[in-house]
C-alpha cells in the first residue's frame, strides 16, 4: 500500500469518514468526530505506521487536513 493510501485509510478509520471527506480545508470544526481523543489516536497511528515521532509543536500544528499533510511531508511521507 502506498503511503498516500495508508494516510487516507488511517484518517477514514479514526474519524469514521469516507475518503471523499478528506479535504484539505477540513478542521476539527468541520468534523464532529475530530476530537482531542481521536486526534491523539491519529497521531499514534501515524507514528506507528510511518515510523517516526512528532514533536509537541507538530502535533499542535496539525489543525487541518492540509496542515496534517504538511507535517507528514516534512517527515518524508509521500502524499
Amino acid at each position: 500500500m502506498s503511503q498516500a493510501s495508508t494516510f487516507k485509510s488511517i484518517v477514514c478509520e479514526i474519524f469514521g469518514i469516507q475518503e471523499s471527506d478528506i479535504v484539505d480545508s477540513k478542521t476539527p470544526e468541520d468534523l464532529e468526530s475530530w476530537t482531542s481523543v481521536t486526534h491523539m489516536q491519529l497521531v499514534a497511528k501515524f507514528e506507528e505506521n510511518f515510523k517516526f515521532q512528532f514533536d509537541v509543536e507538530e502535533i499542535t500544528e496539525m489543525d487541518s487536513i492540509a496542515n496534517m499533510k504538511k507535517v507528514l511531508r516534512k517527515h518524508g511521507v509521500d502524499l
Partner: protein
Amino acid sequence: MSEQNTISKTATIKENVKLGKAIVVQDFVVIGKRPERAKISLFAQAPREFKPTVIGDYVTLCAGAIVYAAVELGNNVFLGDYASIREDTIVGEGTIIGRNVMVENNTKIGKECKIQTGAHITGKCIVGDKVFIGPEVCTTNDSYMGLVEVPMQGPVFCDGCVVGANSTIVPGVRIGKNAVIGAGSVVFQNVPDEEFWMGNPAKKVGTYKQFIGTAKMFAAKKKGTEL
C-alpha cells in the same frame, strides 16, 4: 503582607500544635484533632502519643477544615472548606487541597500539588511533587476490601502526573512521572512514565507528549478540552 495570624473565634486549636506566621484559620476549623476509632473497630489501638501538628507560614485553612494530630503542613499550603487531613500525614509547600478532599493517615503529599474538590486520598499513599489529582478521584489501599488480611498500601503518584476527574486508582499502583490518566478511568496496573492511559480497565492510548500537543491544539481551537 501582614505577618499576623488571622484566626476565627470559632476555630479550635488543640494542644501540641505549632503555628507559623501569617496563617489564616477560618470558622470552625479544628487543628490537632486526635483520631477517634469506633469501639468495635478492627484497627482499635491503645492510646498513643502524637508528634506535634505543625502548620507552616502563610497557610490558609478554610471553613470547617480539620487537621489531625501529627500532621505537617508546609508553607503556603491551602486547604479548602471541609478538607480533612488525617494523622501522621505530611503536605508539602505550596500544595492546594480543594473543598471536601479527604486525605487519610500516614500519607505523604509533595510540593505544589493540586488536589481538587472531593478527591479521596487513601492512607499510606505517596504523592510526589506537582501532581494534579482531579475532582472526586478515588484511591484505595485494601486490595481485598477487608475480606483477607493483607498489608495496606495506597497508590504512588510520581512527580508531575495528572489524574482526570472521577478516576479510581487501586492499591499499590504506581502512576509514573508525567503520566496522564483520562477522566473516569479505573487503573489496575502500573502506568509507566510519560504515558497517557484511560478507560476501564485503563489502557495506554498515547504519550504525555501527544497529550500536550493535542491539548494545546484544542485549547487554541476552543473546541473543547475533553481529554
